């Protein structure tokens, strides 16, 4: 058997063409057997090399060798291409829709009152305060007497205060977090800088602006040389942290038994920023007044300091208190108190579990 150079070249050409034409690895495998296998033209040419005349052997051998190398290289190149095609295809085939819903479980939420309570606590801790707490069933002495609210004061009637049976036990659901201030003054020695968040109770029916169970945050400072100017500075800082830059406070003379001088705290209307006047009362948030009532405050009444044994020659103090629900309503545009207190999970879930 003899093979001509032309045949070798033809085998090589047909192998190269087949390799190029293989569309995937399976086809290439068939091509390999056909064109590089034992029965392929090029293998046969190799086998025939022994029979080639000696003087032609070198030339023929070189031609066969070069042809095989060329075909092998083409094969290797092709296999790389096809493998890479396959890998790319697999990645495409394995694609998933990453936008599929992931809400296997519903997501939870922290009640915004809790978040607000934490935010306010953090703000005041940053200002050097500590967070003080106390019980919700409270002794009348701590809730009233020590706060200069004597036995015949209207606040101590059943219209305002929940009394625990029997009345002789002198226990009430605290009507404000002020008894925590009293407890703090009885337990600690000044300087005292505390913030008192907590649940409070008054016998109001639930409606859009009232709830019998609500939350307050109160602040108490007892130190040397504390003035009403310090109170004003603290409230301004607090208001800005709650409602944004430029939201200052206004103090209006008022009356509370436990403070003197006493004041109502208003904040600059965050909706119109006080740009509405009584003539142009288009602001729905403040009804054109430019100010919104936020809480109460004042210098701690000497009678309260006296009941708590604070030395008035050395120390003076201020206190302030705000409703958390009211603050929350302002901050988030909540118009109905019931949404906050009824426990509808949609309300809380909207605020989410993070911040």
């Amino acid at each position, binding site marked *: 058997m003899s093979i001509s150079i032309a045949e070798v070249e033809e085998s090589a050409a047909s192998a190269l063409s087949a390799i190029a034409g293989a569309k995937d690895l399976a086809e290439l495998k068939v091509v390999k057997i056909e064109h590089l296998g034992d029965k392929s033209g090029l293998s046969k040419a190799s086998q025939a090399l022994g029979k080639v005349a000696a003087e032609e052997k070198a030339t023929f051998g070189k031609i066969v060798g070069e042809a095989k190398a060329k075909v092998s290289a083409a094969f290797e190149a092709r296999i790389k291409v096809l493998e890479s095609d396959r890998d790319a295809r697999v990645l495409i085939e394995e694609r998933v829709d990453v936008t599929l819903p992931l809400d296997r*479980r519903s997501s*939870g939420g*922290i009640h915004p009152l809790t978040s607000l309570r934490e935010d306010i606590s953090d703000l005041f*801790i940053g200002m050097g305060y500590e967070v003080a707490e106390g019980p919700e*069933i409270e002794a009348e002495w701590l809730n009233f007497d020590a706060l200069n609210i004597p036995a015949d004061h209207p606040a101590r009637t059943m219209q305002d205060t929940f009394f625990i049976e029997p009345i002789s036990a002198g226990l009430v659901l605290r009507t404000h977090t002020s008894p925590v201030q009293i407890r703090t003054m009885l337990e600690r020695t000044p300087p005292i800088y505390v913030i008192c968040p907590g649940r409070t109770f008054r016998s109001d029916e639930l409606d859009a602006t009232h709830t019998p169970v609500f939350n307050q945050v109160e602040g108490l400072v007892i130190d040397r040389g504390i003035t009403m100017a310090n109170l004003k500075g603290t409230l301004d800082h607090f208001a800005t942290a709650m409602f944004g830059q430029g939201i200052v406070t206004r103090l209006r003379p008022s009356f509370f038994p436990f403070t003197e001088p006493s004041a109502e705290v208003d904040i600059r209307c965050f909706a119109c920023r006080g740009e509405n006047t009584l003539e142009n009362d288009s602001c729905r948030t403040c009804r054109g007044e430019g100010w919104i009532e936020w809480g109460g405050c004042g210098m701690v009444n000497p009678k309260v300091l006296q009941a708590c*044994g604070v030395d008035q020659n050395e120390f003076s103090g201020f206190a302030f208190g705000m409703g958390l629900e009211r603050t929350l309503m302002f901050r988030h545009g909540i118009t109905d108190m019931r949404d906050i207190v009824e426990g509808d999970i949609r309300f809380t879930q909207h605020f989410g579990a993070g911040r």
Partner: protein
Amino acid sequence: MKFPISWVSEFAKLPKDLDSDSITQALVGAGFEVEGVQNLADEIKGPIKFGKVISIEEITEYKKPIRWVSVDVGEIHNVICGAQNFKVGDHVVVALPGALLPGPFPITARETYGRTSDGMICSARELGMGDDHTGILVMEEQDSPIGSDAIATLGLDEVIFDVAINPDRGYAMSIRGIARELATAFNLDFQDPASLVEVNDANSQSGPIKVSIIEGADRIHLRSVSEVNPNAKSPLWMVRRLQMCGMRSISIAVDVTNYVMIELGQPLHAFDSDRIKGSIIVRSAKEIKTIKTLDEQQRELFPENLLIADESGALAIAGTMGGFESEVTSKTKAITIEAAHFDPVLIAKNARSHKLSTEASRRFERGVDPLLTHIASMRAVNLLVEHTGANYIGFNSVDNLKSAQKIQFDPQAPSKVIGGKYTNEVVQEVLRAIGCEIDESKKDLWQVTRPSWRPDLNASIDLVEEVARLNGYENIPSILPASPLSRGLTPAQRRRRRVVQLLANRGLTEVQSYPFVSAETISIMGFTGDRAKSYRLANPISEQEPFLRTHLVPGLIQTGLKNFSRGVRSLGIFEIGNIYRAINEPSDSPIIGVDTKPSAEEIAKLLAHVPKQPLCIGGFFAGAIERESWWGKGRNFDWSDATEAAVEVVRSCGYEPTIHASDFAPWHPGRCAELRVNGTMVGHSGELHPRVISALGLPERAGAFMVNLDAIPYPESVKAKSITTMVPTIQDIALIVKSEVVLADLTNALIQGAGELLEKIELFDRYQGAGVPEGQLSYAFTLTFRAADRTLTAEEVGGYRASAIVSANKACGAVLRS
């Protein structure tokens, strides 16, 4: 308090161009909340004139009688009118075309009943003068000159302020007090209306009615008049002012007492002198049991009620409401005016015990000037004499008034308390403006005498407040205090935040529920022991829910039910809050004063009197925890989800709880886990009792948990463990035990037997069925062993495994599954 600003202007000459905004700001700045400003001129426009009825033609062809009226308003206008209560010659108010009446109701000449009605004859209501619309307003001739402007005469262009008065400012419940405040605010001269009343008691006769005080008052004046004309009417200006202050005109005697009360602040009462039996006594009710008050209510008296009485019984509930039997009627000829200064606390109690908050009681409670009784009673008598033709007879009085103590006042006090600088001159100016007298003989300690109308001024701090107030709170600087370093949150506060965040991140939603519980709920829950010891409110919002919660789960279930009613089908919710258990019957309150700090013993007693109210966290689960979707089937909440949440809560407090089977209401007796830390119970979890689920209509298999956060100790700081790099050796064990055996016991036995080198034990299978005998269970565990210093050999670990199996066999009868 409502008042027309023109009345105030009589005593503080407010500039004509002062707008109501400025007045509002001055009032607010002085501590008087302005609840409303009504400018009547905004609602009414002329021409509105007085006219005289010239002729009336009755028109009868329509369903109702109609009149065709000619009125002379300086010119003749013909007007259609439906009212019948006037006659030819009467003076009436006519709104002419172009006028605007409140409504708004513009007046034009219009065709009606076949004629051109050229204006409108007005009723009081149409003019915005109260509710009377029984007919048109017929004027007294002398009040209403023909053709003159009715708007000015009737005060239909007044500005009316409505102002809230704080409880310490009784003096401001009067024109006198408001005028004084506005005079100070605008730096105007103030004419005290009390000083305009001439009282000449030294030369006066005594009156026919004697008076004495047994208790409850320190000053009283009775002044009597006779020959009262019973047909006398209140003058128009008085009626209008009372109307603008929100009061109805009743009779000249009552109107006069109200008028003087509003002007001066002293409540008065007018008695029919002829209906008083003997003398008048101020006393507590004691044996006097009832009174019929002038609102015609028969009232049971409380023995401590302060009364004005005569020899036959109660004439009035002092300072609160007069009696029906002694009130002035249309037949009264002799009137006795009573003006007293009562103990404010007793009047507050009078008002509260009868739920009668009246104009008088509100003033007495807040404090009335005690030096007004002789003046106000004289003013009332003068008005009666002037307008009823009465004769003043004379007076009787009791005066036990003690003079107020002088206040020791350091003129530096305002600067020290308020911050900023208040000079002695500024302080003096304020104190004098409010009526104080200052004795400055000691430079550093002034002796300040308060004015009689300011009973609220008792101590230095009260004067400081006045200095701050009248200088304007807006002038107080804003200065942050230099505060000390904070220790940050307490461990309890940090714990609270962690557990809330944990449960929210686990997909639970925080709720806050009311702590009020019904007896029915307690019974459905099946609470016993401490959980059944509820505090009861004396005055609950709802008689259905008078108890305070002893547990968080009932409130969580209620909140769940509310959500179900709004269409929610699955939920996981949690609440953090206090619970209250009346473990001891509440004892009587310790009695402690407020004049000094209580003793350590008293404080301890007081704090111990307040019950412990542990902070708990609870959860409630119902419906699907995982929903069905592209990932496959959903899954419902079950007992294990509740317990897992509870365990996670305890872990986030720094402890791995042990879990024990329990039978604890309101849980399913076979599906309730008790969690313990260091052997102490800290909470329960699991599936709710089927009885609770069916009674409340909850989704099947609903679960709940509650952990008492206060019962979990605070862990010491954790010592680090060194991490070994040796390779672990793994051994699997499958054991068969009787199905009563509790897994925790089996696991503990394996741990005991496996020895110290056991690093971890995990259950990977629990099986019952073919290959396992009836009534038994197969458990398969993976045990991981590791030593810190060497790689363990198979032989050594095989020994530990065998020892574990022996231990399990001994403790639980476990045999190796072949």
